[in-house]
């Protein structure tokens, strides 16, 4: 291979004047994590509401949940980001649209909201499956004790369901982190974006992408390890995964 390897490139100053190339990549990593965390919070909030709606005895609630999930699941994430970023400001009234367009950090907020809603559909499906996997007796017992629907979800069903679906939620969180890379298309310079601009400035393609790869693997490893501890901590006694 006639490719000039130069692993010292990371310690050389970057042309942006923000320190070395390594600093550039680390800034990208921080932005990746920040975007992913905000998106994940949104995904959990909306996903939980929609997931619960899909299990309620009401037909209307079920349909709202069904439409939400189908809407966000059947479009590529990239298209959804374009809709949020390019189309939404045009469809709003003039003033609101202008305000959206001039928002500082628009790519960051758009990416977090877009990815958050996209992931909320997946969280909702997982939660629905989690609630569905509980024995029917749990809900009946809650009703027999005189708990209202809200109370039985709050104290009986949801605490069980969330603990059961923790492993699939972990992989959805990892997906959220990976999906932030799609936001490169609306100008969010996160980890992949920084690796790409490092490649353009320095021509060291493979060093830049190797560093980004290693950082993604590291984040992955930390999340998986952390979640394994959490899983053990909240495991339900009496289940296979329990103590």
């Amino acid at each position, binding site marked *: *291979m006639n490719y000039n390897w130069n692993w010292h490139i990371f310690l050389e100053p970057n042309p942006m004047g923000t320190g070395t190339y390594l600093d550039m990549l680390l800034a990208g990593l921080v932005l990746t994590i920040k975007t992913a965390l905000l998106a994940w919070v949104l995904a959990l909030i909306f996903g939980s509401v929609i997931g619960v709606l899909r299990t309620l005895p009401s037909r209307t609630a079920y349909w709202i949940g069904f439409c939400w999930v189908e809407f966000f699941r059947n479009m*590529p994430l*990239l298209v959804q980001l*374009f809709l949020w970023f390019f189309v939404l400001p045009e469809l709003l009234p003039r003033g609101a649209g202008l305000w959206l367009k001039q928002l500082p950090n628009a790519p960051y907020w758009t990416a977090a909201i877009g990815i958050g809603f996209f992931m909320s559909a997946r969280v909702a499906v997982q939660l629905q499956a989690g609630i569905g996997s509980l024995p029917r007796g749990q809900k009946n017992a809650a009703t027999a004790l005189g708990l209202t629907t809200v109370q039985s979800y709050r104290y009986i069903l949801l605490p069980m369901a969330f603990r059961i679906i923790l492993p699939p939620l972990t992989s959805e969180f990892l997906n959220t982190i990976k999906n932030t890379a799609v936001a490169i298309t609306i100008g969010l310079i996160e980890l992949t974006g920084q690796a790409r601009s490092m490649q353009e400035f320095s021509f060291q393609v493979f060093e830049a992408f190797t560093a980004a790869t290693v950082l993604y*693997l590291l984040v992955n490893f930390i999340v998986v390890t952390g979640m394994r501890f959490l899983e053990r901590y909240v495991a339900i006694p009496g289940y296979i995964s329990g103590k």
Partner: protein
Amino acid sequence: MLGSFDFDVIRRALPYLFLEGMRFTLTLTALAAFGGLVFGTLIALMRLSGYKWLGRIAGVYVDFMRSLPLVLVIFWFYFLVPYIGQWLTGASRPITVGAFASSLITFIMFEAAYFSEIMRAGIQSISKGQPAAASALGLTYAQSMRYIVLPQAFRNMLPVLLTQTIVLFQDTSLVYVLSIPDFLGAASKVAQRDGRLVEMYLFAAVVYFTISCVASFFVRRLQARIAIVR
């Protein structure tokens, strides 16, 4: 607002969008799904082979691919494939690889990791008596896989494989980062040329949504039919 919505822009762009863009997207999806299934099955067989190192290599490959964002993998292969081609053919400089070939290789290698996990679950869902009976009949390992285990595993996993293919169909839109005119790329090109972002992106969204919805409806029906047979 919608008052200035220009349907004519869409109508004029239709031939380009579908004959060029959608053809690229569908060809890429079909070939990548086929290639991903073949390689994915091989990886799954490696993992279940019982040879420690073979299984470990396959496991590392799958975990590695699954922890990277697809966008990064697309960039990786885009820059790496010319060098691999040079290495394979012994040419003196990195060979030029077309946009289609580059993205096809990327998606086959990437999807193989996901398809392999599905096929692994499929193979493991076959009861032990089946390969045991096959070897009692005197079939070799290859024969028992070819005639007994894999057909059943494939059949059991067909709905999941098809669902993964729908995900793949949506993911092919990410070749946008290489400025390749797939369906979304073509829509975006027209959008920027005519200054009609709203119309083109809304139209692209509707098309993706319709195709994915119809496809997943048929997958659900197939799933119901298979469930009755078993």
